[in-house]
């Protein structure tokens, strides 16, 4: 019977696996509804381990938005570790939800949120364990409609074969619209089968159904065109934008897990979108325009969220939280309110200026000044102009010294390696910068105790960014630069000892690059890598570069053509028919500006520079200040 619990079978396996609690559910905030009370049933997945997937805001928000509706039911599933996967296969236990332990294959819709392309193999594991054919073409009305979302869905072509649909952009309203379409179709007796429901979804013009589009290729392998293969679907599919975040104050009832997860805190998104214009940043490009949540809504969400969850930490999240127009009052107000309560507040701080330190001081009144993070991203002024991260070296040193002088002993500096036009010299400059930071810090504090950690991430060019045309460097080049950097850091032993160095090698980035900018032909690589045992590719202990290279060979795909090849302006990109609102001509111009090291301002404070998003999406910047304070003053 559909919707029945598989827990009795699963229960037999749990004593045999590590951390069984992650498969049991029972979180505060979880909703369990009787199967028959719903006419549309969703299963939502974050395709990684529970400890990473559970805190995901996107899934939590959609889970709550859907479950608040009568007649709609949403449950969650996460990737199972290989130990349980094997036992499930041996014992015929299907992919299950953690809420009611129902089989994933029983649901109407299977929504999967991709924050990173390295989760693609985990999608295949889940589909396979759920008994859902990997190829969308082989599915019948008995199978769930597989819908991809999240940032990676802005180029779902490499997984087009495995999904039925993709939603671009914000999900709050999209899931409700999809729910309504499916509800009606089911109420009518599911006319026309799978094709009909997918067609109804595609006609919204904001849900991409890959099967209704054909891709033609040129003799040299580039794409000639992507066109609808039937007359009644749109040429381009547009992203969704949720306006007025105050009207969508989710999560209201955050999920509080029993298992340990990567973020043990109540997270409030204080704004969505970012127009700083960092050219490497896909998130900043595809989530425009900036939409702030007001100080009063944030204050209420924090209060309710803490009361509901019992969490002791609040994270004020966004792509650049210090940029909120009311951030000063917000931090001060929250610090006042929770002073002496053991509640700690955190602000992922990536902006490099003194204002950030003021905020951090407010948030650490309890005296715990453990660490501050800044993200200059590039080691030389030149490369920072290329990536449009407008931080001068002077600013950076002054900011870090201010932090040291105010009691912080440890700062973390984030950089990227493998950026377009980057030379060995640009990367070695990171060492000089770190040395300056320590020298100035020692001078200002008179102490040898100051430390900094240099953390390096590999650059991956992403669709819908000015760097979508850029060539990647090979892992050998990246690894060599990191080696040079390490030598440069340690060239002065006294300074080197005060500097921690953390990095990832270049191999996972190359595979991420293949998957990020791939087209439909890359699906064969994913299928092959998965068949060869590929699981949890975002985890270094599970990732295998060799396996991916072999999978490329077996699938007849030239990985270098997709990664280290620079694209030309006229090339049709696999995602050109997917509309993020960004004008392709503007993106090209911004790419040319990058190559000539010309910077672009932020449209919140300077005139519009015509990136194209607002007019094409009929949206506008929503920022304060509202002039209101955090909470009404109460009479003591």
């Amino acid at each position, binding site marked *: 019977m559909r919707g029945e619990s598989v*827990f009795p079978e699963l*229960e*037999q396996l*749990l*004593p*045999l696996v590590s*951390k*069984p*609690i992650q*498969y*049991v*559910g*029972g*979180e*505060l905030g979880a909703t369990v509804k009787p199967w028959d009370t719903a006419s549309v049933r969703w299963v939502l997945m974050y395709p990684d381990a529970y400890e990473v997937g559970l805190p995901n805001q996107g899934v939590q928000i959609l889970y709550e938005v859907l479950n608040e509706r009568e007649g709609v039911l949403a449950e969650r599933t996460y990737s199972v570790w290989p130990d349980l996967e094997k036992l499930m296969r041996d014992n015929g236990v299907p992919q299950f939800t953690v809420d009611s332990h129902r089989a994933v294959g029983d649901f109407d819709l299977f929504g999967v949120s991709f924050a990173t392309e390295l989760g693609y193999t985990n999608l295949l594991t889940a589909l396979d364990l759920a008994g859902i054919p990997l190829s969308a073409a082989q599915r019948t009305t008995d199978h769930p409609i597989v819908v991809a979302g999240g940032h990676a869905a802005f180029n779902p072509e490499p997984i087009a074969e495995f999904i039925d649909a993709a939603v671009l952009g914000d999900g709050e309203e999209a899931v409700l619209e999809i729910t309504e379409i499916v509800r009606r179709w089911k109420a009518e007796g599911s006319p026309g089968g799978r094709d009909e429901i997918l067609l109804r979804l595609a006609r919204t013009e904001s849900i991409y159904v890959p099967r209704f589009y054909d891709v033609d290729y040129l003799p040299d392998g580039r794409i000639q065109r992507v066109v609808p293969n039937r007359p009644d679907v749109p040429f381009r599919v547009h992203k969704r934008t949720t306006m007025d975040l105050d009207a969508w104050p989710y999560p209201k009832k955050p999920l*509080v897990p*029993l*298992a*340990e997860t990567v973020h*043990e805190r109540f997270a409030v998104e204080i704004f969505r979108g970012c127009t700083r214009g960092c050219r490497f940043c896909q998130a900043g490009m595809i989530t425009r325009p900036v939409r702030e949540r007001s100080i009063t809504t944030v204050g209420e969400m924090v209060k309710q969220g*803490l*009361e*509901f*969850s*019992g*969490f*002791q930490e609040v994270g004020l999240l966004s792509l650049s939280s210090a940029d909120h127009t009311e951030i000063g009052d917000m931090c001060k107000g929250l610090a006042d309110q929770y002073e002496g309560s*053991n509640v700690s507040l955190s602000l992922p701080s990536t902006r490099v200026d003194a204002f950030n330190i003021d905020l951090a001081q407010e948030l650490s009144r309890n*005296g*715990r000044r453990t660490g501050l993070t800044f993200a200059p991203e590039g080691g030389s002024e030149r490369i920072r102009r290329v990536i449009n991260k407008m931080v001068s070296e002077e600013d950076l040193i002054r900011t870090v010294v201010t932090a040291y002088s105010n009691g912080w002993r440890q700062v973390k500096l984030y950089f990227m390696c493998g950026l377009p036009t980057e030379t060995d010299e640009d990367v070695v400059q990171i060492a000089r910068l770190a040395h300056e930071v320590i020298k100035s810090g020692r001078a200002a504090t008179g102490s040898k105790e100051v430390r900094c950690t240099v953390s390096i991430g590999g650059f991956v060019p992403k669709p819908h960014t000015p760097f979508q045309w850029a060539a990647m460097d090979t892992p050998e080049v990246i690894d060599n630069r990191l080696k040079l950097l390490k030598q440069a850091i340690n060239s002065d032993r006294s300074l080197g000892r005060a500097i921690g160095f953390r990095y990832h090698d270049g191999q996972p980035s190359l595979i991420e690059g293949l998957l990020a900018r791939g087209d439909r032909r890359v699906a064969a690589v994913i299928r092959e890598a998965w068949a060869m045992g590929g699981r949890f590719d975002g985890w270094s202990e599970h990732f295998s570069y060799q396996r991916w290279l072999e999978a490329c060979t077996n699938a007849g795909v030239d990985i270098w053509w997709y990664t280290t090849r620079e694209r030309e302006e006229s090339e049709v990109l696999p995602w050109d028919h997917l509309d993020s609102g960004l004008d392709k001509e503007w993106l090209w111009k911004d790419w040319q500006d990058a190559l000539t090291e010309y910077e672009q301002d932020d449209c919140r404070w300077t005139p519009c520079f015509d990136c194209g998003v607002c007019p094409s999406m009929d949206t506008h910047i929503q920022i304060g200040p509202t002039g209101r304070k955090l909470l009404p003053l109460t009479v003591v």
Partner: protein
Amino acid sequence: MQRVRVRYAKRGPLRFTSHRDFARAIERAIHRARVPIAYSQGFTPHPKISFSSAAPTGVASEAEYLELGLRERVEPDRLAKDLDEALSPGLDIVEVVEALTTDSLSDRLTASHWRVELPGVAVSAAAEAVAAFVAEQEVLVERLFKQGRRTFDVRPAVHSITPVEGPDGSIGVPCAILDLVVRQVTPSVRPDDVLSGLRAVADLDMAAPARVIRLSQGTLTPRGEIVDPLALDRDAAVVGNRLT
């Protein structure tokens, strides 16, 4: 500072909660229920919660214990209700009493009463293994400790082990049930160590994982009874009430 002693249960699917998981959950529940928990002094204050020996992950329990230090006096029954509501169903508060005695709660927990279900094991096979086990003076088993593999004797800690009648045959699958009283010793002897012992002495075949539940914990009397560890505090409260 008021001290209260809490008995709680770990039931059903939530028996897979590890001790660390439970420690986080109870701390959050304390904040949700606005329990006036006392904090330790120092740079990183910790809430005053002390746990007594926890049942292993995957083992259900009707009798786990912890003690809380409170900055304000709270009515124990009220606290039990509030805390229970703030915890996930399956982690249930059974009873709260005010600590009116000064000896440590952990010292009172000298033995545990376990019920062990062995799906797929015939009652007769279990009975034979138990008889063989009881006849031995020493039963060595191996377990993986943090320091590595270690062999130790489980026999002395087992106060009693008895096969009891179960739903054998009624559901088609045999299921032997053992009633087990084990003393609290170091290194602790857990029910799965005793099962390892049965395997060692009688080669008992247990294909399916055992289902284990701790029924009670307390002070083992010479007559083999387990005394409720909260009884002393409960009695003191009654006496106290009579005096006022």
